């Protein structure tokens, strides 16, 4: 028995989401954890250390989602895997639904628990943009599970994985890659993967006031985020927009500065472990969702907070 995990490579190494998927698969205790990946791979891509025992590798760099899905399904059948695990990130979302159809497998997209096999096969997922959870029962013999990024954490096993070439037939594709634009050129942490996020809203008054937000983020090695109006008016780039219509994140620590806490904003951040709210209005709805709050003017609080954070980090 084995579990197949689709892993996504960046600079030869498995992405953080992929390592989470491997960690999840090894905690399932459902046999060997076999990874499938394609493109440039260095060594075992760091995957053995997170539970993979074998890595099936196809060297082709650019494959379209349809081609990847075909290879993943073929790899699952070669590995004798009845369960395929993905990260529910941008890469997983492109491939997992196709794999489910190909394998006649039921799928849970956005899983937040390990499978419960005490009665059937039930996996919990997040629904209503994080406002509720649903237990989904899979009725098929084959299963696909894609897990919400940042909800399980990494589980180091310090093993090693053997790497095997996997040269299945990818088939043709009418899709061609023209170019790739990385989101952040400066090596900043991608927002969906960040453990700490410093986010700000219209309360910051204008884009010129983002210096302290960025400074606080850099002290904590955090990513920056913003509310929707801030992205819409162009103060900040669109990929920073979190919430119901932006991206959903679940960092361990979320700072919300000058954000009112509208329900559509909360929908994207209420999976955060700890929420800190800084707002000058004591009635701001965000305080109801906060673990820690400061009622005050961000322009006065931030400089002091930055000093305190710096001195904490230097100890």
């Amino acid at each position, binding site marked *: 028995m084995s579990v197949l995990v689709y892993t*996504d490579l*960046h600079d030869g190494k498995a992405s953080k989401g992929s390592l989470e998927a491997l960690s999840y698969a090894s905690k399932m205790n459902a046999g060997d954890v076999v990874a499938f990946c394609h493109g440039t791979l260095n060594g075992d891509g760091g995957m053995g250390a997170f539970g993979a025992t074998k890595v099936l590798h196809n060297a082709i760099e650019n494959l379209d*989602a*349809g081609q990847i*899905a075909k290879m993943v399904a073929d790899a699952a059948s070669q590995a004798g895997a009845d369960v395929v695990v993905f990260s529910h990130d*941008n890469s997983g*979302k*492109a491939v*997992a*639904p*196709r794999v*489910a*159809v190909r394998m*006649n497998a*039921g*799928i849970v997209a956005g899983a937040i628990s390990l499978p419960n096999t005490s009665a059937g096969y039930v996996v*919990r997922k*997040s*629904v*209503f943009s994080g406002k*509720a959870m*649903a237990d*989904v*029962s899979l*009725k*098929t013999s084959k299963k696909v599970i894609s897990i919400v990024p940042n909800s399980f954490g990494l589980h180091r096993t310090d093993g090693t994985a053997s790497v095997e070439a996997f040269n299945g037939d990818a088939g043709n594709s*009418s*899709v*061609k890659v*023209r*170019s*790739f*634009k990385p989101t952040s050129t400066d090596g900043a942490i*991608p927002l969906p993967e960040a453990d700490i996020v410093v986010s700000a809203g219209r309360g910051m008054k204008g884009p010129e006031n983002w210096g302290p937000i960025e400074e606080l983020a850099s002290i904590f090695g955090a990513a920056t985020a913003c509310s929707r109006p801030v992205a819409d008016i162009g103060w900040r780039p*669109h*990929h920073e927009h979190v919430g*119901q*219509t*932006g991206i*959903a994140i679940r960092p361990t*620590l979320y700072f919300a500065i000058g954000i009112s806490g509208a*329900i*559509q904003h909360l*929908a994207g951040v209420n999976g955060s*472990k700890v929420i*800190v*709210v800084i707002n000058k209005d004591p009635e701001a709805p965000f305080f*109801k*969702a*906060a*673990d*820690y*709050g*400061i*009622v*005050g003017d961000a322009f006065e*609080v931030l400089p*002091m907070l930055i000093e*305190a954070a710096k001195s*904490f980090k230097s100890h």
Partner: protein
Amino acid sequence: MKILVCISKAPDTTSRIAFTDNNTKFDENGVQYIVNPYDEWYALVKGIELKETLGGNVTTITVGGSDNEPIIRKALAIGADDAVRVDLETGDSFVVASQIAAYAKDQGFDLILCGKETINYNSSLVGGMVAEMLNMPYLSLATSLTMEGSTAVIEREVQGGVEVLEVTGPFVLSAAKGLAEQRIPNMRGIMAARTKPLNVIAAISVDQTAEIVSYTLPAPKGACKYVDADHPEELIRLLHEDAKVI
């Protein structure tokens, strides 16, 4: 271009989320339904823009009961030409995708648009499943689509950045923010929508592969601990010693 847009209904974003029947059913009491924002703002408007510049036809498809008709009329008011409703009280993503694929199979659509995800189930599955069933490319999470002759150029979100792709021939695309700008229907559109065709078709029979057996609400948050605005260092201490997150 012959375009199909997948339209689903979703509870208004401010709806209270609660469950009935021993936590097995979503409590619809007092819930207003809207067109799922990704479907309306981005997928539908992009379809209409393409039709306006290149000519053609925009059909919407919705899998669901007759309670979907108000949201379908809204899509027609924004500018779709006609609508199809597959008469089925919604099943899982696989069942929904199977209905859409069965309808689209022989219709010769150049483009099938759907939203990034529904805001109630957040699955991001239907588009990819339809693409696999119809053996078409799936361009997920697209933020831009332009036509260069018969070649479509798409920007899409992938891990770590934005990929620019080109595709010829029919494809399925899921719409993310940026693909188009929201449009508000005008009076003329609303009047015209009343007489546009809304064809109800029978569902094909397919078995559900997944089923929601129960819902749970997250545990309520404890009360917020306030820190004095003049002493943010106390916040740092609490985050370190109390919450243990830094």
